[in-house]
């Protein structure tokens, strides 16, 4: 039986994250799912971007490609198409995934590339000092919205669903058991899967918005959580300010590579030798 520690680089600890940060819970969940599924490390490739959560690859003993801010999904698209046998995991924060990289997210979901996007959403840019991002809630105080944030935030899961994602789920750092279950569901899903992990940033977002310490923020997240099944019966007004958790979308649609492979099979010049894409 594999252990999450088998997938970790303990010599890289202590990690870079602040005391009370929720990112470590997501990291442990990812490693625990690898162990649960007993995945061969050589079959996994993790692609990460820039930001607090972009540093997740530093602590994992697997294939890693650490790229530029917002570009993890397109880099992962190249890997997933060049070697469709790999489990491609993409770790991003709210900046990477729906702010600087928002365009890549919607197109990756639309194409239904077979990979798993794991997004740690802490409502702000933690690594650079707590500036607002595309998911910062309206009226929040951040280092660049000192008078209150006037923009409307993205709901990452609804954005992904509208763009065509075939597996969409959300968990909070309060509930790592559910987080692991949803991440596993995403990895096992064929096609584009996205798991939004709500994480607390007590250092910046929490402090600016007087949300207390990490534990207070986690309790608040839990208090706001509503299971996806129950949310279906609720009105938009009732759902205001709530965090819908669990599997939100889970449907079958043929992934990009499977479709493209049919073109290859139909068009291929038979006398040509093998290629990497034959696996």
């Amino acid at each position, binding site marked *: 039986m594999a252990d999450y520690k088998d997938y970790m680089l303990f010599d*890289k600890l202590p990690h870079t994250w602040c005391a009370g940060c929720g990112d470590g819970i997501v990291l442990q969940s990812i490693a625990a799912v690898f162990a649960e599924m007993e995945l061969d*490390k*050589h*079959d996994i*490739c993790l*692609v990460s971007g820039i930001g607090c959560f972009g*540093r997740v*690859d*530093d602590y994992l*003993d*697997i*294939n*890693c*490609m*650490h*790229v*530029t801010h917002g*570009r993890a*999904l*397109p*880099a*992962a*698209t*190249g*890997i*997933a*198409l*060049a*070697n469709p*046998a*790999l489990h491609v995991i993409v770790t991003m924060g709210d900046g990477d995934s729906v702010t600087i990289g928002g*365009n*890549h997210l919607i*197109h990756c979901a639309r194409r239904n590339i077979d990979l798993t996007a794991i997004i740690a959403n802490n409502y702000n840019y933690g690594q650079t000092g707590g500036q607002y991002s595309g998911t910062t809630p309206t009226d929040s105080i951040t280092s660049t919205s000192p008078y209150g944030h006037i923009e409307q935030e993205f709901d990452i899961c609804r954005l992904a669903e509208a763009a065509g994602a075939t597996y969409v789920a959300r968990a909070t750092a309060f509930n790592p058991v559910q987080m692991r279950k949803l991440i596993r569901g995403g990895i096992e899903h064929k096609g584009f899967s996205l798991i939004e992990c709500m994480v607390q940033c007590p250092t910046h977002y929490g402090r600016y918005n007087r949300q207390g310490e990490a534990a207070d923020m986690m309790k608040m997240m839990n208090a706001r959580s509503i299971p996806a099944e129950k949310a279906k019966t609720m009105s938009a007004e009732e759902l205001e300010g709530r965090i819908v958790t669990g599997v939100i979308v889970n449907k079958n649609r043929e992934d*990009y590579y499977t479709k*493209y492979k049919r*073109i*290859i099979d139909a*068009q*291929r*010049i038979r006398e*040509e030798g*093998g*290629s*990497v*894409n*034959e696996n």
Partner: protein
Amino acid sequence: MKSQKKFIEGNEAVVDGAIAAGARFYAGYPISPSSEIAEGAARELPRYGGIYIQMEDEISSMAALLGASLAGVKSFTATSSPGFSLMQENLGLGIMSEIPAVIFNVQRSGPSTGAATKPAQADIMQARYGAHGDHSIIALSPSSVQDCYDLTITAFNLAEKYRTPVLFLSDEVIGHLRETVTETEPGPDQIFSRIQPDPDISQKDFRPYGYSSDSVVPMPAVGNRKLLMRTTGSTHDEKGEFSPNPQNIDRVTHYLTNKIEKNAEDITITRTYQLDDAEIAFITFGCSVRSTISAVDILRAEGVRAGMLQLVTIWPMPEKEIRAVLAKAGTVVVPEMNLGQLAGEIRKFNDYGCRILQANRTDGVLITPQQIINTLED
């Protein structure tokens, strides 16, 4: 060796060359005057088991190329100058992560949308310095459709050999020029594929990067059964782990420059035309080569000892060859379709008191032999 004659345009020959070189992945965003490369790749790649994907922009195209290449598939993209601007971010990622790829830039006029899609050769400096931070770059420039086939194979070989993105600076004239090309299938000894690690090496001893010498370190594909691979655009150590200490930053910077600059002789390709006894020497590249050859012929017919040095490799700049011309010729003229980007580089080497003249054209019309000759009379 299989060989066939075709009457095609430069952009089509690029696709044939890429496939002959073993490229099996294309990610790109269409832009004139390069779109025929995308269309050719979309049509041909699946026939060879390869993949074409049209991305949402040039930023993601460049990222996808690097991902596919890391997974072991030779990869390429094509764009034109404004799209090349968007690629700079992940071109830098490719340089820092040391991932091979080939980027075809069919240059057009600018800045911005410019006179879309008229020819220019004004990305010499963007090619060299467009990505931020100190680094070196390899860039080749074709002057014929034959070059578009042959040099494409060279570009992939250099990318694999030096584990770096390689630029192919074509232009609208060459990209859309239609002429006869002989496409000779390269033999196995003419194709260079990235060096693989010693099959007996253990994960513990394996290092995805090396900085102790200027030589290139083997690169296994992500997904191989034996070695885990770690790449990053952050300054890293030999293990590919983030390492921002001053000593490491400095050696990585020097390494990325030296692995190309110290091998300039191997990378440099130049051609000469009537150069041996030339008193007036032209130094040029790309589409301007064609007009310059005519200018040399006209001048020779008039009894003027004119000749030409063609820079097929633009970066690293063929310093030795340029210096030899500057030391010997009384006058050097630099024809180019920009305001003097190449001429400025040549002046850097002019320790010989050589008279250097510029023949520039920036109106989106191919520079003519007469215009080049007129430079001498000014």
